[in-house]
């Protein structure tokens, strides 16, 4: 562990990526994540074996990352909402070809070009696959600088272990905010497990083929079911979340990323005002922590989903709860940053209207 450094979230991801053994970054500029690209440029230049490419487009960047991944490198790209839309074809191809790589989406207000303010409107795109075909990507939604450092490393480990693209989603607030961060020591990339599937020249061994084109219907079906099996394993093994003050809660707020930071402040305010309120913060958004929510419905009958969108994770909460409790929603899309007081007001209104203060 190194000493604490005050760093912006975008810089933290880029530094953590290099320390995780990432040796290839390709990207195309877009606000509010240019600091990640900028930092990666400097970091790759000073890292032996590092490559940084400012690509001619987002589509070129994701395909360069696919190439680097095929050649065995830990590789990543980053962008913001409209740029991530452009990368979706590549992400679908990478999922099909079972290639490990990291994509970071610093979400902004949308749809369309929208604006550059913090938003969470890309949840569906991230967690439902985003590109075409039957696939999933691991999606992680960090909420602090330290989590960005720790989860960026995990993202590369997950990608390599499960052979799948991983996405980290944040927003301009997580990206621009500075917090003290302690980085784990850099890994020695020579000690990473060897990858027996990469394309590194077939001299002295049979040639290998990596492709997503499977014209034989039976083989494509088998490939689909193979992916599903992998996704089931991932769901069992890496689903993660944070619980705050849920033990005696009568109302539980569900929020992730930036929204969860604000919601946690709101929950503390509500507690100070005597309301029994807790928070569930999904850390992995896919796989979604459905089971913990489902099990809570035995004792908690009111849930409030707060998102910086018009209601996307809301659907996952409803699917998890299966009608066993009431699911309410409060959303601020388009780049609006709520204050804890605003969310505390929502909590209080709900607490009173559902008469949760009685015995």
């Amino acid at each position, binding site marked *: 562990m190194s000493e604490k450094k*005050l760093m912006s979230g975008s810089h933290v991801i880029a530094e953590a990526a290099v320390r995780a053994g990432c040796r290839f970054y390709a990207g195309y500029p877009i606000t509010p994540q240019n600091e990640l690209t900028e930092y990666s440029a400097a970091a790759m230049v000073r890292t032996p074996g590092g490559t940084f490419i400012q690509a001619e487009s987002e589509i070129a960047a994701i395909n360069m990352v696919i190439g680097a991944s095929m050649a065995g490198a830990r590789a990543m790209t980053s962008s913001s909402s409209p740029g991530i839309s452009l990368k979706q074809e590549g992400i679908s191809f990478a999922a099909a070809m079972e290639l490990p790589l990291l994509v970071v989406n610093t979400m902004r207000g949308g749809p369309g070009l929208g604006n550059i303010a913090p938003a969470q409107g890309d949840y569906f795109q991230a967690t439902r696959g985003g590109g075409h075909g039957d696939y999933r990507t691991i999606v992680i939604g960090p909420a602090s600088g330290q989590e960005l450092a720790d989860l960026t490393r995990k993202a590369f480990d997950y990608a390599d272990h499960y052979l799948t693209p991983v996405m980290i989603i944040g927003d*301009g607030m997580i990206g621009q*905010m500075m*917090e*003290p961060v302690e980085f784990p020591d850099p890994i020695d990339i020579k000690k990473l497990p060897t990858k027996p599937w990469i394309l590194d020249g077939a001299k002295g061994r049979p040639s290998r083929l990596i492709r997503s084109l499977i014209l034989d219907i039976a083989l494509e079906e088998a490939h689909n079911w193979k992916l599903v099996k992998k996704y089931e394993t991932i769901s069992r093994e890496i689903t993660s979340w944070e619980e705050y003050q849920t033990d005696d809660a009568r109302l539980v707020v569900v929020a992730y990323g930036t929204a969860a*930071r604000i919601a*946690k*402040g709101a929950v503390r305010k509500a507690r100070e005002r005597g309301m029994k309120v807790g928070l569930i913060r999904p850390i992995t958004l896919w796989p979604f922590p459905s089971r913990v929510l489902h099990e809570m419905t035995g004792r908690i009958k009111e849930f409030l989903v707060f998102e910086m969108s018009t209601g996307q994770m809301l659907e996952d909460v409803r699917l998890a709860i299966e009608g066993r409790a009431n699911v309410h929603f409060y959303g601020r899309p388009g780049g609006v940053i709520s204050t*804890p007081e605003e969310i505390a007001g929502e909590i209080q209104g709900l607490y009173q209207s559902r008469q949760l203060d009685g015995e």
Partner: protein
Amino acid sequence: MIKKTVFSGFGGQGVLMMGYVLAVSAMKDGRHVTYLPTYGAEVRGGTANCTVVVSDEEIFSPVASTLDYAVLMNKPSLVKYEPLMSEGGLIIINSSLVSDSPSRKDVGFVRIPANDIARELGSDRTINMIMLGALVAKTGITTQDSIMNGLSEIVKAKKASLMELNRKGLQKGAEYALKF
């Protein structure tokens, strides 16, 4: 203890650097900190602000519902942040550029003629350290030594004369604020 401070003014007044120096200094003291700058399609002469939270325990929201302290470098900042001050909060204003006073009576108020003091020191670039010195002296949010410690990390590659100028700025701001 948790204290939320906003620094606000025109781009170019060193507003973001003020908040950054406070955040680094408090971090080096072992406190929890968050530094949240505004960003956007900013232009020179436009508004710039940042919110710094300093706390003895984990900081949940880096977004402040209300503010304990505000260091305001121009009039639009006063208009924007006065309503967000918590009761008993403190506004420190650059009176070289803002002649208005807050209308609220439940909020403390200190006027620091930062540009005039900076001119006496021989460098306009010290206005942010003068204001930061005033904040630290009036609130005890951290100490002047901590600020110098934080500064030495931030400007470590730079000249000793710059450190000395910053130290003088902090000192002058503190002296002025304590007389107020």
